[in-house]
């Protein structure tokens, strides 16, 4: 449990948050052009098709880039700092913003393999996908 900004969801994005609540990472998959996409939309950004289905993905990815924020970007993050904010590239293709948790921020590197984890947001019924380094041993 941690304090964070609470994401405003919509009917269209509910499957994403329901999956996260069940400790799963789900993104949309276009049945027309066979591509995963993120963030959620009514139409595929590649081909415009409305035939998008939700698919649970591996939760594996790598760090495309990151920073260590020493000052909280919003006061609600005070207790998180210094915090690692990153762009994660999923194995399935899409990139998303996330945090890398469960490690010393100084050990984070671009290209590092990461795995999804789940964190409940304080005072909410929302679970947020975050990432942790993949243990190599």
């Amino acid at each position, binding site marked *: 449990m941690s304090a964070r900004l*609470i994401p*405003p969801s919509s009917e269209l994005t509910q499957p994403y948050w329901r999956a996260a609540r069940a400790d799963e990472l789900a993104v949309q998959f276009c049945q027309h052009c066979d591509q995963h996409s993120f*963030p959620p939309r009514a139409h595929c950004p590649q081909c415009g098709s409305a035939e998008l289905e939700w698919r649970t993905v591996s939760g594996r990815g790598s760090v495309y880039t990151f920073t*260590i*924020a*020493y*000052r909280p970007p919003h006061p*609600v993050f005070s207790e998180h700092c210094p915090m690692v904010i990153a762009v994660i590239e999923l194995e399935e293709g899409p990139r998303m913003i996330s945090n890398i948790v469960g490690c010393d921020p100084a050990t984070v590197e671009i290209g590092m393999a990461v795995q999804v984890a789940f964190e409940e947001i304080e005072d909410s019924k929302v679970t947020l996908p975050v990432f942790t380094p993949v243990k190599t041993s």
Partner: protein
Amino acid sequence: MSLKGAAAVVGVAELAPQRYTGDATILDLLSGVAVEAMADAGFYRSQVDGLIVHPIGGLPGFVPATVAEHLGLQPTFAEIVDLGGATGAGMIWRAAAAIQAGMCTTCLCLTGTRRRKRTPRGNNTNADTSRRPRSFSPSRDRSPQAEFDAPYGMLGANVGYAMIANRYAHEYGLKDTQRAKVAVDQRKNANANPAAIFHDQTLTIDQVLSSEVICEPLHMLEIVMPAAGAAALLVTAADRVADAKQPPAWILGAGESVTHSSFAQAPGLDATGIGIAARSAFSQAGVRPSDIGLASLYDCYTVMVLLTLEEAGFCARGEAGAFVEAHDLTFGGDFPLNTHGGQLSFGQPGMAGGMSHVTEAVRQIQGRCGARQIPGLELAYAHGNGGIIAEQTGLVFGAAR
């Protein structure tokens, strides 16, 4: 078809950046610089039939009409530009395009912001968190970024540009001292510009690198400081240029690109919209980056200048760090860059911050920059950048049509 030579900037006015404004409303700040820009060009209000503004906090809509009424204008072309830091540059080519299309003959481009004393610079660690909203009001912000980026602290711009700096360093290598050199040379320029907010303060590489790290690797003194201020530019048709009191800064080429909104969806650093916009501007103008005598490049952060230098073609890919080390970027140097100080030293008065790169390019072309004037300048390039390298506009200005 291109915009080349269809119109020129003939009037400029700027309210120098200040930390805070007094009681003047935003409409009065804008009308102040509008009146001054018309006077600068020697144009009467009745000769102005175009108006371009940007979204203004507190005005829910109808912004062009509200501003036009306040100024006593009844334009035949009224437009709003919403491209973040590229807004100012984006206004200029739209004005030229509207003139070329016969929608108006003389167009006022207005930018500015007020700023009242509230929080200190940077992010406020000591703020009372209990009174800050924890969630976004659904009616106010249902953007994908509010839902999928903000919960992770991806807010404001510091985080995104720090990510860019780290990715750039990973791909090409970049030293802290190379980023700092940009801030230091620009400060020398600001020391020759009385309007710059840091006019009276010198800066060294050591000072930059010993300032607080806000988002690794970016230091406080690599980050632009918000300010209050305003800028107005008057663009007129080629056949009206002779009516102006000031020499024209001809609009020779323009380019624009919008590639994403969330930084997670940005193209790679070798395929940004910066390059798309710049190549289009140079191609319209029929000139090359090496022909340019002043690079007036958007500098919300030191790293943005480095990225723009190579994406716009002023140096080879991956060599921006070495390039800034090898060149004197001051107004008297071999590669004059952001001769007004850049926003890093001039201050960032909202959208007038981005416009300051345009204003400086125009004034340098007009030969009105006093102590920091580049002698005999013929071509200048101004670049605007919005969001986290999301919106880009490039402009080539010339002393000759």
